[in-house]
């Protein structure tokens, strides 16, 4: 699956008070590339669909915490 994350470099000023962040990211979820879901798309198994929040692999968007997890 193609990455859903986009990266850009924010402006850096010569007199910025704080250490600059190297880059920023945002997510472009798969719903941006579909305007009407075609019939007969592949489906997740039902337990998997419940866990992921969608029946459709074509609509699945992973997201991981910037803080990680414990």
């Amino acid at each position, binding site marked *: 699956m193609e990455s859903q994350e986009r990266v850009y470099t924010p402006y850096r000023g010569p007199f910025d008070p704080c250490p600059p962040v190297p880059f920023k990211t945002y*997510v472009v*979820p*798969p*719903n941006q590339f*579909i*305007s*009407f*879901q*075609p019939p007969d798309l592949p489906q997740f198994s039902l337990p998997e669909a*419940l*866990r*992921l*929040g*969608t029946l*459709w692999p074509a*609509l*699945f*968007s992973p*997201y*991981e*915490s*910037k*803080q*990680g*997890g*414990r």
Partner: protein
Amino acid sequence: MWIYEKKLQYPVRVSKCDVRMARYLMEQYGGADGELAAALRYMNQRYAIPDKVIGVLTDISTEEFSHLEMIATMIYKLTKDASVQELEAAGLGPNYAQRDHALFYQNSAGVPFTATYIQAKGDPLADLYEDIAAEEKARATYQWLIDMTDDVDLQDGLKFLREREIVHALRFKESVQILIDERGKKKVF
């Protein structure tokens, strides 16, 4: 009419005693882009929209109420055993002063819910585009909430809710397509 099923749409597990997150979760409880705003927005807009898409609004509104219930469960689990000191440390002192451990429809900054968070323009496209934007804003809010906790179980529930917003946004986009194409042709690209 509604039938209530006495279970959550998705199991809510919270494994870390982190009262701070209860406060931030209120953004999705009584905030501008929260589940209450979403549910009420769609439930109201459906009375002035073409018949073909009323069902979408009803279905999604209903599901948003079940999300509201999940968020409430998360907040409840995080606050029910918290001491006054712990609530104060999490910024929930004012909430305790007003209502002990009770939940309330307010955002993460304690601003109470207001109907001005939602719109009803009576124009099908204007209303549906508002709904699409609302879903994307809720998705973003879930991302920031996921970023704020390292509790994998809480993250799990929030990831489920985030994915639902993505699906809902697409269903509203499809509703727009249905209204645009009155001949009922469905274009796929």
